[in-house]
């Protein structure tokens, strides 16, 4: 299960994820981003309540990162140790901007 909460402040969109970003739920996030990224200059993911992320979830983050590379960027916040470790192992920590 995945809960997606969007909050917009001017051109910055914050997407808070709660639950599991996996094969089953990744399409929900993809659809949600597709619908909301058009007017967004900067994208922030708040992962405080994200329990886990599999390769299907990484795929969505990668495509969001590529899209935001053409704008003002994308930031990951509050990722748990478990999620950070997955970013490390997969080299995503070099692609993503990960903040505390």
């Amino acid at each position, binding site marked *: 299960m995945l809960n997606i909460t969007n909050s917009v402040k001017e051109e910055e969109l914050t997407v808070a994820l709660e639950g599991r970003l996996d*094969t*089953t739920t990744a399409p929900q996030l993809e659809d949600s981003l597709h619908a909301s990224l058009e007017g967004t200059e900067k994208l922030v993911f708040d992962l405080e309540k994200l329990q*886990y992320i599999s390769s*299907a979830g*990484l795929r969505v983050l990668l495509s969001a990162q590529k899209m935001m590379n053409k704008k003002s960027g994308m930031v990951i916040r509050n990722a748990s140790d*478990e999620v950070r470790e997955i970013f490390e*192992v997969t080299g995503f920590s070099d692609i993503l901007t990960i903040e505390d």
Partner: protein
Amino acid sequence: MRELRNVAKLDNLDEVIAFVEEQLEEHDCPPKLVIQINIAVEEIYVNIAHYAYTPEIGEAVVQTEFSEDPSGITITFIDSGKPFDPLAKPDPDVTLPAEERQIGGLGIYMVKKSMDDVQYERKDGKNILTITKRW
């Protein structure tokens, strides 16, 4: 040994994860490892659901076996689909910039990195993938 059999399709992923997760909790597996094992189960089962029988459908078998001292779980995934050794693929280049990144192969790479042992065998017309994690 416990066993779950179902049709290899994405709709059944949650059932497979619940089957393994319940047993991990019964065996006091540390929460951090439960997450790693869940991810490994997802990546492997999704591979089977996507590729083993396409465009047909077929059965997936998931077997679990626990050991003690050291504590650990061995999970065996069996399908009767096309021969496919996921370990034969070269590891993805995880140093490439975003624009050049390929996601294919990343799931199995995560499994290899997080599990203590991963083995593939083709036997009697079946793909048999076995993963082990100890705690």
